[in-house]
Protein backbone atom coordinates (compact mmCIF):
# COMPACT_ATOMS: atom_id res chain seq x y z
CA UNK A 1 0.00 0.00 0.00
CA UNK A 2 2.84 2.37 0.89
CA UNK A 3 4.70 1.61 -2.34
CA UNK A 4 1.49 2.04 -4.36
CA UNK A 5 0.85 5.46 -2.89
CA UNK A 6 4.47 6.42 -3.61
CA UNK A 7 4.08 5.46 -7.28
CA UNK A 8 0.68 7.16 -7.44
CA UNK A 9 2.11 10.37 -6.04
CA UNK A 10 4.57 10.55 -8.96
CA UNK A 11 1.78 10.49 -11.58
CA UNK A 12 1.01 14.20 -11.12
CA UNK A 13 4.54 15.59 -11.59
CA UNK A 14 5.14 13.28 -14.58
CA UNK A 15 1.86 14.29 -16.21
CA UNK A 16 2.65 17.97 -15.80
CA UNK A 17 6.13 17.55 -17.34
CA UNK A 18 4.60 15.61 -20.23
CA UNK A 19 1.82 18.13 -20.89
CA UNK A 20 4.28 21.03 -20.71
CA UNK A 21 6.63 19.41 -23.22
CA UNK A 22 3.95 18.39 -25.75
CA UNK A 23 3.77 21.84 -27.46
CA UNK A 24 7.57 21.80 -27.81
CA UNK A 25 7.43 18.34 -29.42
CA UNK A 26 4.61 19.44 -31.78
CA UNK A 27 6.62 22.56 -32.65
CA UNK A 28 9.69 20.44 -33.49
CA UNK A 29 7.63 18.13 -35.70
CA UNK A 30 5.67 20.78 -37.61
CA UNK A 31 8.69 23.04 -38.12
CA UNK A 32 10.83 20.23 -39.57
CA UNK A 33 12.72 21.37 -42.64
CA UNK A 34 12.48 25.05 -41.76
CA UNK A 35 15.19 27.29 -40.35
CA UNK A 36 15.17 26.70 -36.60
CA UNK A 37 18.68 26.51 -35.22
CA UNK A 38 20.82 27.41 -38.25
CA UNK A 39 22.41 30.54 -36.89
CA UNK A 40 22.30 32.93 -33.95
CA UNK A 41 19.18 34.73 -35.18
CA UNK A 42 17.06 31.63 -35.87
CA UNK A 43 18.27 29.87 -32.70
CA UNK A 44 17.34 32.73 -30.36
CA UNK A 45 14.05 33.22 -32.21
CA UNK A 46 13.22 29.50 -31.86
CA UNK A 47 14.13 29.52 -28.17
CA UNK A 48 11.87 32.54 -27.73
CA UNK A 49 8.99 30.68 -29.35
CA UNK A 50 9.59 27.56 -27.23
CA UNK A 51 9.80 29.55 -24.00
CA UNK A 52 6.48 31.20 -24.86
CA UNK A 53 4.77 27.89 -25.66
CA UNK A 54 6.03 26.00 -22.57
CA UNK A 55 5.57 29.01 -20.29
CA UNK A 56 1.97 29.50 -21.39
CA UNK A 57 1.21 25.76 -20.95
CA UNK A 58 2.63 25.78 -17.41
CA UNK A 59 0.72 28.97 -16.64
CA UNK A 60 -2.55 27.31 -17.73
CA UNK A 61 -1.84 24.07 -15.85
CA UNK A 62 -0.96 25.93 -12.65
CA UNK A 63 -4.65 26.92 -12.36
CA UNK A 64 -5.59 23.23 -12.25
CA UNK A 65 -3.52 22.90 -9.09
CA UNK A 66 -5.73 25.38 -7.25
CA UNK A 67 -9.00 23.46 -7.75
CA UNK A 68 -8.28 21.12 -4.76
CA UNK A 69 -9.71 18.20 -6.76
CA UNK A 70 -9.35 14.83 -5.09
CA UNK A 71 -7.87 13.16 -8.18
CA UNK A 72 -5.13 15.81 -8.45
CA UNK A 73 -4.38 15.47 -4.74
CA UNK A 74 -3.99 11.70 -5.20
CA UNK A 75 -1.66 12.19 -8.19
CA UNK A 76 0.64 14.41 -6.11
CA UNK A 77 0.43 12.62 -2.76
CA UNK A 78 -1.33 15.34 -0.78
CA UNK A 79 -2.66 18.85 -1.19
CA UNK A 80 0.48 20.39 0.32
CA UNK A 81 2.46 18.81 -2.53
CA UNK A 82 -0.12 20.05 -5.06
CA UNK A 83 0.35 23.63 -3.82
CA UNK A 84 4.11 23.17 -3.85
CA UNK A 85 3.87 22.07 -7.50
CA UNK A 86 1.57 25.03 -8.24
CA UNK A 87 4.16 27.39 -6.77
CA UNK A 88 6.99 25.83 -8.76
CA UNK A 89 4.97 25.80 -12.00
CA UNK A 90 4.01 29.43 -11.52
CA UNK A 91 7.63 30.45 -11.02
CA UNK A 92 8.84 28.43 -14.04
CA UNK A 93 6.05 29.81 -16.22
CA UNK A 94 6.96 33.32 -15.11
CA UNK A 95 10.67 32.90 -15.90
CA UNK A 96 9.92 31.38 -19.33
CA UNK A 97 7.37 34.04 -20.23
CA UNK A 98 9.77 36.74 -19.01
CA UNK A 99 12.49 35.59 -21.41
CA UNK A 100 10.08 35.02 -24.32
CA UNK A 101 10.16 38.63 -25.67
CA UNK A 102 13.86 39.05 -24.89
CA UNK A 103 14.80 35.94 -26.85
CA UNK A 104 12.68 37.12 -29.77
CA UNK A 105 14.39 40.52 -30.01
CA UNK A 106 17.94 39.54 -29.11
CA UNK A 107 18.64 38.80 -32.81
CA UNK A 108 18.35 42.55 -33.52
CA UNK A 109 21.10 43.36 -31.01
CA UNK A 110 23.45 45.14 -31.61
CA UNK A 111 23.07 45.88 -35.35
CA UNK A 112 19.38 46.87 -35.31
CA UNK A 113 18.96 48.04 -31.75
CA UNK A 114 16.24 50.52 -32.71
CA UNK A 115 14.10 47.67 -34.10
CA UNK A 116 14.57 45.69 -30.87
CA UNK A 117 13.51 48.70 -28.80
CA UNK A 118 10.41 49.29 -30.93
CA UNK A 119 9.49 45.59 -30.64
CA UNK A 120 9.52 45.75 -26.83
CA UNK A 121 7.36 48.88 -26.64
CA UNK A 122 3.59 49.20 -27.12
CA UNK A 123 2.58 49.79 -30.73
CA UNK A 124 -0.51 49.95 -32.90
CA UNK A 125 -0.63 46.12 -32.90
CA UNK A 126 -3.15 45.09 -30.23
CA UNK A 127 -2.15 41.40 -30.14
CA UNK A 128 1.39 42.48 -29.21
CA UNK A 129 0.07 45.03 -26.73
CA UNK A 130 -1.97 42.29 -25.01
CA UNK A 131 1.29 40.40 -24.51
CA UNK A 132 3.02 43.46 -23.05
CA UNK A 133 0.11 44.17 -20.66
CA UNK A 134 -0.05 40.50 -19.56
CA UNK A 135 3.70 40.35 -18.94
CA UNK A 136 3.82 43.58 -16.93
CA UNK A 137 0.80 42.54 -14.84
CA UNK A 138 2.34 39.14 -14.23
CA UNK A 139 5.57 40.77 -13.06
CA UNK A 140 3.62 42.95 -10.62
CA UNK A 141 1.60 40.04 -9.19
CA UNK A 142 4.58 37.69 -8.89
CA UNK A 143 6.64 40.36 -7.14
CA UNK A 144 3.74 40.93 -4.73
CA UNK A 145 3.34 37.19 -4.15
CA UNK A 146 6.99 36.39 -3.57
CA UNK A 147 8.60 39.53 -2.20
CA UNK A 148 5.86 41.57 -0.49
CA UNK A 149 4.95 40.51 3.04
CA UNK A 150 1.20 40.78 2.64
CA UNK A 151 -1.47 39.37 4.92
CA UNK A 152 -2.97 36.05 3.80
CA UNK A 153 -6.22 37.86 2.90
CA UNK A 154 -4.56 40.49 0.69
CA UNK A 155 -2.28 37.90 -0.87
CA UNK A 156 -5.29 35.74 -1.79
CA UNK A 157 -7.16 38.64 -3.38
CA UNK A 158 -4.10 39.74 -5.37
CA UNK A 159 -3.53 36.16 -6.52
CA UNK A 160 -7.05 36.00 -8.00
CA UNK A 161 -5.98 38.62 -10.57
CA UNK A 162 -3.68 36.01 -12.12
CA UNK A 163 -6.78 34.68 -13.89
CA UNK A 164 -7.28 38.04 -15.59
CA UNK A 165 -3.61 38.12 -16.60
CA UNK A 166 -4.04 34.65 -18.09
CA UNK A 167 -7.06 35.76 -20.14
CA UNK A 168 -5.10 38.75 -21.53
CA UNK A 169 -2.17 36.42 -22.28
CA UNK A 170 -4.57 34.13 -24.20
CA UNK A 171 -5.62 37.08 -26.41
CA UNK A 172 -1.93 37.61 -27.21
CA UNK A 173 -1.26 33.93 -27.92
CA UNK A 174 -4.18 33.44 -30.29
CA UNK A 175 -4.31 36.84 -32.01
CA UNK A 176 -0.65 37.44 -32.74
CA UNK A 177 0.66 35.87 -35.96
CA UNK A 178 2.91 32.97 -34.92
CA UNK A 179 3.34 29.25 -35.50
CA UNK A 180 0.10 28.74 -33.57
CA UNK A 181 -1.66 30.58 -36.41
CA UNK A 182 -0.08 28.46 -39.14
CA UNK A 183 -0.09 24.96 -37.64
CA UNK A 184 -3.60 23.71 -36.64
CA UNK A 185 -2.33 20.89 -34.39
CA UNK A 186 -0.35 23.37 -32.30
CA UNK A 187 -3.30 25.76 -32.26
CA UNK A 188 -5.76 23.11 -31.07
CA UNK A 189 -3.39 21.84 -28.37
CA UNK A 190 -2.83 25.34 -27.02
CA UNK A 191 -6.57 26.04 -27.25
CA UNK A 192 -7.28 22.87 -25.23
CA UNK A 193 -4.70 23.70 -22.56
CA UNK A 194 -5.89 27.31 -22.33
CA UNK A 195 -9.49 26.16 -22.02
CA UNK A 196 -8.44 23.80 -19.19
CA UNK A 197 -6.72 26.68 -17.40
CA UNK A 198 -9.71 29.00 -17.85
CA UNK A 199 -12.15 26.31 -16.70
CA UNK A 200 -10.04 25.64 -13.59
CA UNK A 201 -9.84 29.35 -12.80
CA UNK A 202 -13.61 29.77 -13.31
CA UNK A 203 -14.25 26.77 -11.04
CA UNK A 204 -12.23 28.32 -8.21
CA UNK A 205 -14.27 31.53 -8.62
CA UNK A 206 -17.69 29.86 -8.51
CA UNK A 207 -16.75 27.22 -5.90
CA UNK A 208 -17.97 29.28 -2.91
CA UNK A 209 -21.44 29.44 -4.51
CA UNK A 210 -21.54 25.69 -5.13
CA UNK A 211 -21.89 24.94 -1.38
CA UNK A 212 -19.29 22.19 -1.26
CA UNK A 213 -18.61 22.96 2.43
CA UNK A 214 -20.20 21.43 5.52
CA UNK A 215 -21.79 23.61 8.17
CA UNK A 216 -20.51 23.40 11.76
CA UNK A 217 -20.74 25.72 14.75
CA UNK A 218 -18.31 26.61 17.49
CA UNK A 219 -19.15 24.61 20.62
CA UNK A 220 -16.17 25.52 22.85
CA UNK A 221 -13.15 27.83 22.76
CA UNK A 222 -10.27 26.97 25.08
CA UNK A 223 -7.73 29.75 25.60
CA UNK A 224 -6.01 28.46 28.74
CA UNK A 225 -2.63 27.98 27.03
CA UNK A 226 -0.55 30.98 25.96
CA UNK A 227 -0.38 31.49 22.16
CA UNK A 228 -2.72 28.54 21.58
CA UNK A 229 -6.47 28.35 20.93
CA UNK A 230 -8.38 25.08 20.99
CA UNK A 231 -11.64 25.32 19.04
CA UNK A 232 -14.26 22.56 19.22
CA UNK A 233 -16.78 22.42 16.39
CA UNK A 234 -20.02 20.42 16.26
CA UNK A 235 -21.85 19.55 13.03
CA UNK A 236 -25.10 21.31 12.16
CA UNK A 237 -25.97 18.68 9.56
CA UNK A 238 -23.78 16.04 7.94
CA UNK A 239 -20.51 15.50 9.74
CA UNK A 240 -17.11 15.37 8.07
CA UNK A 241 -15.61 11.96 7.27
CA UNK A 242 -11.84 12.18 7.61
CA UNK A 243 -8.71 10.18 8.40
CA UNK A 244 -6.42 10.91 11.32
CA UNK A 245 -3.78 13.45 10.26
CA UNK A 246 -5.87 15.24 7.63
CA UNK A 247 -6.62 18.95 7.49
CA UNK A 248 -9.56 21.18 6.53
CA UNK A 249 -10.19 24.70 5.27
CA UNK A 250 -12.43 26.70 7.57
CA UNK A 251 -14.39 29.89 6.90
CA UNK A 252 -15.93 31.61 9.91
CA UNK A 253 -19.28 33.24 9.31
CA UNK A 254 -21.08 35.91 11.31
CA UNK A 255 -18.10 37.39 13.14
CA UNK A 256 -15.72 40.29 12.64
CA UNK A 257 -13.09 37.90 11.30
CA UNK A 258 -12.10 38.00 7.61
CA UNK A 259 -14.31 35.74 5.52
CA UNK A 260 -11.61 33.88 3.57
CA UNK A 261 -10.69 30.21 4.08
CA UNK A 262 -7.75 29.11 6.22
CA UNK A 263 -6.24 25.61 6.48
CA UNK A 264 -5.93 23.86 9.86
CA UNK A 265 -5.05 20.30 10.81
CA UNK A 266 -7.64 18.39 12.80
CA UNK A 267 -6.32 17.49 16.26
CA UNK A 268 -9.16 15.18 17.28
CA UNK A 269 -9.82 11.57 16.37
CA UNK A 270 -12.07 10.68 13.40
CA UNK A 271 -14.09 8.53 15.80
CA UNK A 272 -15.19 11.61 17.80
CA UNK A 273 -18.32 13.48 16.80
CA UNK A 274 -16.87 16.93 17.35
CA UNK A 275 -13.85 18.30 15.53
CA UNK A 276 -11.08 19.98 17.52
CA UNK A 277 -8.62 22.40 15.98
CA UNK A 278 -5.46 23.39 17.87
CA UNK A 279 -4.36 26.76 16.46
CA UNK A 280 -1.22 28.65 17.35
CA UNK A 281 -1.36 32.46 17.20
CA UNK A 282 1.04 33.14 14.37
CA UNK A 283 -0.61 36.02 12.50
CA UNK A 284 -3.48 38.54 12.41
CA UNK A 285 -6.15 35.94 11.74
CA UNK A 286 -5.04 33.24 14.18
CA UNK A 287 -4.58 35.82 16.96
CA UNK A 288 -8.23 36.85 16.66
CA UNK A 289 -9.59 33.30 16.92
CA UNK A 290 -9.53 33.35 20.73
CA UNK A 291 -12.38 35.89 20.59
CA UNK A 292 -14.74 33.42 18.88
CA UNK A 293 -18.03 32.84 20.67
CA UNK A 294 -19.84 29.49 20.99
CA UNK A 295 -22.59 29.23 18.38
CA UNK A 296 -20.61 31.01 15.65
CA UNK A 297 -21.27 29.21 12.32
CA UNK A 298 -18.24 27.76 10.57
CA UNK A 299 -17.99 26.35 7.03
CA UNK A 300 -15.65 23.38 6.68
CA UNK A 301 -14.19 22.25 3.36
CA UNK A 302 -12.24 19.04 3.16
CA UNK A 303 -10.76 16.77 4.29
CA UNK A 304 -7.39 17.10 2.57
CA UNK A 305 -3.94 15.61 3.04
CA UNK A 306 -2.51 12.12 2.82
CA UNK A 307 -0.56 12.06 6.06
CA UNK A 308 -2.23 8.86 7.26
CA UNK A 309 -0.13 6.70 9.59
CA UNK A 310 -2.06 3.57 8.60
CA UNK A 311 -0.73 3.86 5.03
CA UNK A 312 2.69 2.61 6.12
CA UNK A 313 3.20 -0.81 7.66
CA UNK A 314 6.65 -0.68 9.29
CA UNK A 315 7.44 0.41 12.89
CA UNK A 316 7.12 4.18 12.96
CA UNK A 317 9.09 7.13 14.27
CA UNK A 318 6.96 10.24 14.69
CA UNK A 319 8.69 13.61 15.07
CA UNK A 320 6.59 16.65 15.95
CA UNK A 321 7.92 20.20 16.21
CA UNK A 322 5.77 22.66 18.21
CA UNK A 323 2.25 22.97 16.79
CA UNK A 324 3.21 20.21 14.32
CA UNK A 325 1.93 17.88 17.06
CA UNK A 326 -1.71 18.29 15.86
CA UNK A 327 -1.83 15.49 13.23
CA UNK A 328 -0.06 13.14 15.68
CA UNK A 329 -2.63 14.00 18.37
CA UNK A 330 -5.36 12.92 15.99
CA UNK A 331 -3.49 9.72 15.04
CA UNK A 332 -2.66 8.80 18.67
CA UNK A 333 -6.26 9.45 19.78
CA UNK A 334 -7.55 7.31 16.92
CA UNK A 335 -5.06 4.52 17.75
CA UNK A 336 -6.12 4.67 21.41
CA UNK A 337 -9.78 4.44 20.46
CA UNK A 338 -9.51 1.69 17.85
CA UNK A 339 -6.25 -0.04 18.74
CA UNK A 340 -5.13 0.26 15.11
CA UNK A 341 -1.34 0.42 15.00
CA UNK A 342 0.91 -0.60 12.10
CA UNK A 343 3.66 -1.59 14.59
CA UNK A 344 5.47 -0.03 17.54
CA UNK A 345 5.45 3.77 17.42
CA UNK A 346 7.82 6.23 19.13
CA UNK A 347 6.83 9.91 19.20
CA UNK A 348 9.41 12.64 19.78
CA UNK A 349 7.53 15.73 20.90
CA UNK A 350 9.90 18.69 20.36
CA UNK A 351 9.22 22.02 22.04
CA UNK A 352 11.33 24.93 23.27
CA UNK A 353 10.59 24.20 26.93
CA UNK A 354 8.31 22.12 29.15
CA UNK A 355 5.69 24.91 29.41
CA UNK A 356 5.08 24.67 25.66
CA UNK A 357 4.45 20.93 25.74
CA UNK A 358 0.74 21.39 26.44
CA UNK A 359 -0.35 18.06 24.95
CA UNK A 360 2.22 15.90 26.79
CA UNK A 361 -0.19 14.80 29.48
CA UNK A 362 -2.80 13.64 26.97
CA UNK A 363 -0.18 11.76 24.95
CA UNK A 364 1.20 10.03 28.06
CA UNK A 365 -2.31 8.90 28.95
CA UNK A 366 -2.64 7.37 25.47
CA UNK A 367 0.76 5.74 25.88
CA UNK A 368 -0.34 4.18 29.19
CA UNK A 369 -3.55 2.93 27.60
CA UNK A 370 -1.83 1.35 24.59
CA UNK A 371 1.31 0.24 26.45
CA UNK A 372 4.84 1.71 26.26
CA UNK A 373 6.00 -1.09 23.96
CA UNK A 374 3.35 -0.08 21.40
CA UNK A 375 3.31 3.69 21.77
CA UNK A 376 6.10 5.63 23.49
CA UNK A 377 6.28 9.42 23.95
CA UNK A 378 9.60 11.23 24.41
CA UNK A 379 9.65 14.96 25.21
CA UNK A 380 12.59 16.83 23.69
CA UNK A 381 13.07 20.43 24.85
CA UNK A 382 15.55 22.39 22.73
CA UNK A 383 16.41 24.78 25.61
CA UNK A 384 17.56 21.78 27.71
CA UNK A 385 18.89 19.31 25.11
CA UNK A 386 19.55 21.37 21.98
CA UNK A 387 17.95 20.69 18.62
CA UNK A 388 16.96 17.14 17.80
CA UNK A 389 19.43 15.35 15.51
CA UNK A 390 19.62 12.00 13.80
CA UNK A 391 22.54 10.73 15.94
CA UNK A 392 20.50 11.23 19.10
CA UNK A 393 17.46 9.61 17.48
CA UNK A 394 19.56 6.66 16.31
CA UNK A 395 20.93 6.09 19.84
CA UNK A 396 17.47 6.34 21.38
CA UNK A 397 15.98 3.84 18.96
CA UNK A 398 18.92 1.46 19.34
CA UNK A 399 18.30 1.64 23.11
CA UNK A 400 14.78 0.34 22.44
CA UNK A 401 16.11 -2.43 20.21
CA UNK A 402 15.00 -0.73 17.00
CA UNK A 403 16.87 0.69 14.00
CA UNK A 404 15.70 3.83 12.25
CA UNK A 405 16.79 2.32 8.92
CA UNK A 406 13.92 -0.17 9.28
CA UNK A 407 11.30 2.38 10.24
CA UNK A 408 8.92 4.76 8.51
CA UNK A 409 9.58 8.31 9.65
CA UNK A 410 6.70 10.80 9.89
CA UNK A 411 7.66 14.47 10.30
CA UNK A 412 5.53 17.51 11.04
CA UNK A 413 6.84 20.86 12.23
CA UNK A 414 8.55 24.04 11.09
CA UNK A 415 9.81 23.69 7.47
CA UNK A 416 13.46 24.28 8.43
CA UNK A 417 13.33 21.51 11.03
CA UNK A 418 11.70 19.02 8.65
CA UNK A 419 14.06 19.85 5.81
CA UNK A 420 17.13 19.54 8.04
CA UNK A 421 16.06 16.23 9.56
CA UNK A 422 14.96 14.76 6.21
CA UNK A 423 18.40 15.56 4.72
CA UNK A 424 20.20 14.04 7.72
CA UNK A 425 18.11 10.87 7.49
CA UNK A 426 18.91 10.56 3.79
CA UNK A 427 22.62 10.93 4.58
CA UNK A 428 22.25 8.07 7.05
CA UNK A 429 21.06 5.87 4.20
CA UNK A 430 17.35 6.06 4.84
CA UNK A 431 15.40 6.01 1.58
CA UNK A 432 13.23 8.97 0.56
CA UNK A 433 10.25 6.63 0.43
CA UNK A 434 10.59 6.02 4.18
CA UNK A 435 10.38 9.72 5.08
CA UNK A 436 6.90 11.21 5.09
CA UNK A 437 6.00 14.78 5.90
CA UNK A 438 3.25 17.33 5.72
CA UNK A 439 3.93 20.99 5.01
CA UNK A 440 1.84 23.59 6.76
CA UNK A 441 2.91 26.52 4.64
CA UNK A 442 0.40 26.29 1.80
CA UNK A 443 0.64 30.00 0.82
Amino acid sequence: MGANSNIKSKVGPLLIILLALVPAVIWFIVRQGTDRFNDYATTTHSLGQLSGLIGMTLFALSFLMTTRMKIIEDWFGGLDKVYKAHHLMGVLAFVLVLFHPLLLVIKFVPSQLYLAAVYLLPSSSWPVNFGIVALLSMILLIVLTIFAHMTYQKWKVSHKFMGLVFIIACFHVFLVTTDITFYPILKYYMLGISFLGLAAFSYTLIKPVLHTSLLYEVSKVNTQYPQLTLISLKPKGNSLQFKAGQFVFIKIRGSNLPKEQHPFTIASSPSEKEITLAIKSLGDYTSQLKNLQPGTPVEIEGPYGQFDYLTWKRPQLWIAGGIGITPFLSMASYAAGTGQLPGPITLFYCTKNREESVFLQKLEQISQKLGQEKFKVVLHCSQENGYLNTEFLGQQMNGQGQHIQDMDILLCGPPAMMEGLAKSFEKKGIKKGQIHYEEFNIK
Partner: protein
Amino acid sequence: MKTKLLVGISLAVFVLLSVNIIAFGLILGNNQNNQQQKIILQQNTTAAISRQQDPQSAVILNNQTQAATATSTASTNSGSSTNNGAASSTTTQQNTMMPPVTTTQTQTKMPPRTTRAS
Protein backbone atom coordinates in the same frame (compact mmCIF):
# COMPACT_ATOMS: atom_id res chain seq x y z
CA MET B 1 14.38 30.75 -0.84
CA LYS B 2 15.48 29.07 -4.09
CA THR B 3 12.40 30.32 -5.94
CA LYS B 4 12.96 33.83 -4.57
CA LEU B 5 16.51 33.72 -5.91
CA LEU B 6 15.41 32.37 -9.31
CA VAL B 7 12.67 34.99 -9.69
CA GLY B 8 14.97 37.75 -8.42
CA ILE B 9 17.80 36.91 -10.83
CA SER B 10 15.42 36.48 -13.78
CA LEU B 11 13.72 39.79 -13.05
CA ALA B 12 17.06 41.56 -12.72
CA VAL B 13 18.26 40.16 -16.07
CA PHE B 14 14.96 41.05 -17.73
CA VAL B 15 14.92 44.61 -16.40
CA LEU B 16 18.59 45.17 -17.21
CA LEU B 17 18.32 43.85 -20.77
CA SER B 18 14.98 45.35 -21.71
CA VAL B 19 15.72 48.78 -20.23
CA ASN B 20 19.09 48.87 -22.00
CA ILE B 21 17.66 47.68 -25.30
CA ILE B 22 14.85 50.23 -25.17
CA ALA B 23 17.03 53.12 -23.98
CA PHE B 24 19.99 52.55 -26.31
CA GLY B 25 17.70 51.52 -29.17
CA LEU B 26 15.73 54.73 -28.96
CA ILE B 27 18.84 56.90 -28.46
CA LEU B 28 20.67 55.25 -31.36
CA GLY B 29 17.55 55.42 -33.52
CA ASN B 30 17.30 59.11 -32.76
CA ASN B 31 21.00 59.62 -33.48
CA GLN B 32 20.72 57.80 -36.81
CA ASN B 33 17.82 60.04 -37.83
CA ASN B 34 19.73 63.11 -36.75
CA GLN B 35 22.84 61.98 -38.65
CA GLN B 36 20.82 61.31 -41.77
CA GLN B 37 19.28 64.74 -41.54
CA LYS B 38 22.72 66.25 -40.96
CA ILE B 39 24.09 64.53 -44.06
CA ILE B 40 21.16 65.77 -46.11
CA LEU B 41 21.62 69.27 -44.83
CA GLN B 42 25.36 69.19 -45.52
CA GLN B 43 24.84 67.89 -49.06
CA ASN B 44 22.22 70.53 -49.76
CA THR B 45 24.44 73.23 -48.41
CA THR B 46 27.41 71.98 -50.42
CA ALA B 47 25.32 71.81 -53.58
CA ALA B 48 23.96 75.31 -53.05
CA ILE B 49 27.41 76.76 -52.38
CA SER B 50 28.95 75.06 -55.42
CA ARG B 51 26.14 76.41 -57.57
CA GLN B 52 26.71 79.90 -56.26
CA GLN B 53 30.52 79.70 -56.66
CA ASP B 54 30.58 77.85 -60.00
CA PRO B 55 27.39 78.49 -61.99
CA GLN B 56 28.90 76.74 -65.04
CA SER B 57 29.03 73.37 -63.32
CA ALA B 58 25.52 73.96 -62.09
CA VAL B 59 24.45 74.47 -65.73
CA ILE B 60 26.27 71.30 -66.74
CA LEU B 61 24.61 69.43 -63.91
CA ASN B 62 21.25 70.86 -64.89
CA ASN B 63 21.80 70.04 -68.58
CA GLN B 64 22.86 66.52 -67.74
CA THR B 65 19.70 66.04 -65.70
CA GLN B 66 17.56 67.41 -68.50
CA ALA B 67 19.32 65.20 -71.07
CA ALA B 68 18.81 62.12 -68.96
CA THR B 69 15.15 62.95 -68.57
CA ALA B 70 14.81 63.50 -72.31
CA THR B 71 16.49 60.19 -73.15
CA SER B 72 14.31 58.40 -70.71
CA THR B 73 11.17 60.03 -72.17
CA ALA B 74 12.29 59.31 -75.74
CA SER B 75 12.86 55.63 -75.12
CA THR B 76 9.57 55.44 -73.28
CA ASN B 77 7.73 56.96 -76.23
CA SER B 78 9.49 55.22 -79.08
CA GLY B 79 10.37 51.80 -77.69
CA SER B 80 8.34 48.68 -77.33
CA SER B 81 7.06 47.54 -74.01
CA THR B 82 10.34 45.68 -73.44
CA ASN B 83 12.37 48.77 -74.26
CA ASN B 84 10.12 50.78 -72.11
CA GLY B 85 10.88 48.39 -69.24
CA ALA B 86 14.63 48.54 -69.94
CA ALA B 87 14.65 52.32 -70.01
CA SER B 88 12.69 52.49 -66.82
CA SER B 89 14.96 50.01 -65.14
CA THR B 90 18.02 52.08 -66.10
CA THR B 91 16.51 55.13 -64.52
CA THR B 92 15.56 53.19 -61.45
CA GLN B 93 19.03 51.70 -61.16
CA GLN B 94 20.55 55.14 -61.23
CA ASN B 95 18.24 56.21 -58.49
CA THR B 96 18.75 53.16 -56.30
CA MET B 97 22.52 53.11 -56.63
CA MET B 98 22.62 56.51 -55.02
CA PRO B 99 21.57 56.92 -51.40
CA PRO B 100 17.82 57.21 -51.81
CA VAL B 101 17.29 59.97 -49.31
CA THR B 102 20.09 62.09 -50.72
CA THR B 103 18.80 61.70 -54.28
CA THR B 104 15.32 62.77 -53.37
CA GLN B 105 16.53 65.65 -51.29
CA THR B 106 18.89 66.90 -54.03
CA GLN B 107 16.06 66.92 -56.50
CA THR B 108 13.39 68.45 -54.33
CA LYS B 109 15.50 70.82 -52.32
CA MET B 110 17.26 72.29 -55.38
CA PRO B 111 16.49 75.99 -55.30
CA PRO B 112 14.43 76.74 -58.42
CA ARG B 113 15.73 80.31 -58.65
CA THR B 114 19.34 79.11 -59.19
CA THR B 115 18.23 76.82 -62.02
CA ARG B 116 16.36 79.62 -63.69
CA ALA B 117 19.28 82.00 -63.23
CA SER B 118 21.66 79.54 -64.92
